[in-house]
């Protein structure tokens, strides 16, 4: 372990976080890394840093964590929002500290991230992986817990006026779930829409910088309270016979997520609570 890791661990990793992290059974190589760049030490430090934000800044309230299988392959499918992938980080913390059985969450991220210095590596160390179907299938075949946001940048980059309106879902996750016999746990995320409200997207600047979007928003996320509601696992295992069947299954997941968002919104009492 490097000196930086030791210092960061001392500064951010509490006893509870360490205990939860130690309970995660994740296969790694002799240096604590896996094939996708997940680092045991890196994930522990990331968990320590974000757990403080999770508990004290976003005051995350979870429900239904018992629905996440404690072992075996699983796809966690959630709505996306908030310009920055904070929803992904908060779901990851909830999964990694799940009292019913913590797991190492593998979040599928935009293809853009690995090209950004430091960001790509840090995300990989925490367990995030480029959102390529091949990666997703290979991780599920290794019985990992994979988190996917099928809305992609359509969800995270949407303007504030479209908050809590599910954008078009990609169908790739459903094909993968059916082909690999993987249960889907739907998640409704409420609160992240208010963290970085975007009024406009400066498309020409985004194109010039090679970014997915450049929002007109505040520079720092606001401390909105976040509600994460995990639904019952949905089983779609079986051979894909028609694309129509896939679309219908995706709509079933969307309906489940809509229901979970509505439940979360019913608990929300204003912008920050």
């Amino acid at each position, binding site marked *: 372990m490097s000196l930086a890791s030791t210092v960061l661990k001392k500064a951010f990793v509490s006893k509870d976080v360490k205990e939860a992290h130690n309970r995660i059974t994740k296969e790694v190589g002799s240096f604590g890394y896996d094939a996708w760049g997940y*680092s045991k030490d890196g994930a522990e430090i990331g968990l320590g840093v974000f757990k403080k934000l999770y508990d004290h800044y976003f005051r995350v309230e979870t429900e239904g964590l018992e629905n996440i299988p404690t072992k075996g392959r699983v796809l966690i499918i959630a709505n996306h929002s908030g310009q920055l992938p904070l929803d992904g980080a908060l779901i990851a913390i909830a999964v990694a500290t799940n009292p019913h059985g913590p797991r190492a969450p593998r979040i599928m991220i935009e293809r853009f991230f690995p090209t950004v210095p430091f*960001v790509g590596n840090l995300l990989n160390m925490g367990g995030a992986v480029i959102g390529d179907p091949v990666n997703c299938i290979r991780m599920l075949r290794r019985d990992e817990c994979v988190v996917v946001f099928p809305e992609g940048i359509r969800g995270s980059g949407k303007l504030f006026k479209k908050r809590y309106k599910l954008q078009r879902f990609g169908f790739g996750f459903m094909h993968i779930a059916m082909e690999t016999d993987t249960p889907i746990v739907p998640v409704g995320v409420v609160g992240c829409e208010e963290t970085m409200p975007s009024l406009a997207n400066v498309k020409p600047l985004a194109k010039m910088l090679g970014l997915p979007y450049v929002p007109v928003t505040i520079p720092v996320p606001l401390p909105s309270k976040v509600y994460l509601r995990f639904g019952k696992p949905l089983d779609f295992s079986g051979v894909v016979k028609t694309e129509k069947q896939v679309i219908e299954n995706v709509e079933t997941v969307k309906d489940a997520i809509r229901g979970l968002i509505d439940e979360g919104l019913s608990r929300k009492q204003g912008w920050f609570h």
Partner: protein
Amino acid sequence: MPKAKKTETVDRQSVETVQEKKRPQVLVTGAAGVLAQETINRLSQKKYDVVAIDFRRAVQIGDDIPSYKVDFLKRGFEDIFRQHKFDAVIHLGRVGTDIGGSHFRHNANVRGTQKLFDLCVKYEVSQVIVLSSYFVYGASAYNPALLDEDTPLKASDLSLNLIDTVELDNLSQIYMYKYRRVRMKILRPCNIAGPGVRNNIGRLLSRKVVPVLWGFNPVMQFLHVSDMADAIVKACGKPNIYGIFNVAPNDWAPYKEVLRRCDIIGVPMVSIPDALPMWIARMAGWEAFPSYLVNYFKYPVIVDGSRFAKAFNFSPRRSLEEIFLHYREMKTRRWV
């Protein structure tokens, strides 16, 4: 009558014994390299008759191992096939990107290999093992991890310097499908390192100071040269299994950690825009960190070696730590 039966049995046994004693003849190219020499040593111990060739020089390996300096493109090369009845050819003699220009490399690696394969077909060699490289997949930000053998080869798309490496691999595949009688095994190993290895990664790990691309730390795979030699010998031992195989351990280490374990100081180097580190490396003329390999120090290229492991019952015996220990000790010795 029972007596006659016994005699017949004895005779058959003696015939079988004679047949068993026939040692398979193996041609190994690139004999001057450390991997070839390790392979030749193992083959000799496993009762193969080995013939060694290299385009650089006739290597002195042992009294019982004929060694030739040959140019694949010259007519005299065929004489070696006429003199020996090869059962297998192990083609390790690939010209590195630091030797000669692109025309020379193309002639040696692609046209020379084609000549070798043509002779293998003509003289009915039953199996050919070709050393390719994981470089053929190309280093891209969009690569998924655990690339399998069906992944398209993108290296030439990203760097013209690797075009002959990809062509050699493609050529081998053409012969594999065109001439089924020649059982072709195309091996694509990850970074081969260890004592005596003079490839790019071997030279890099032998240094005390090397560049590190600012903000990038890709995970990498390493295989000890002895393990790679074992892998080749295992592949040679099963002539009926053929195809394309990645050869890599189920273990990974990030570049900066590798440098730390090898007692190397990493000097940060500008990493964006993409062309800038390549331009700097080209201008500086770093042999161990050439411009066309810059992306391999930026983005991970992780291959899945499970197909080879399963087919040939292979698992590396030397750990990553053991590989890095060699380079660490090498630096300590230099100070003494």
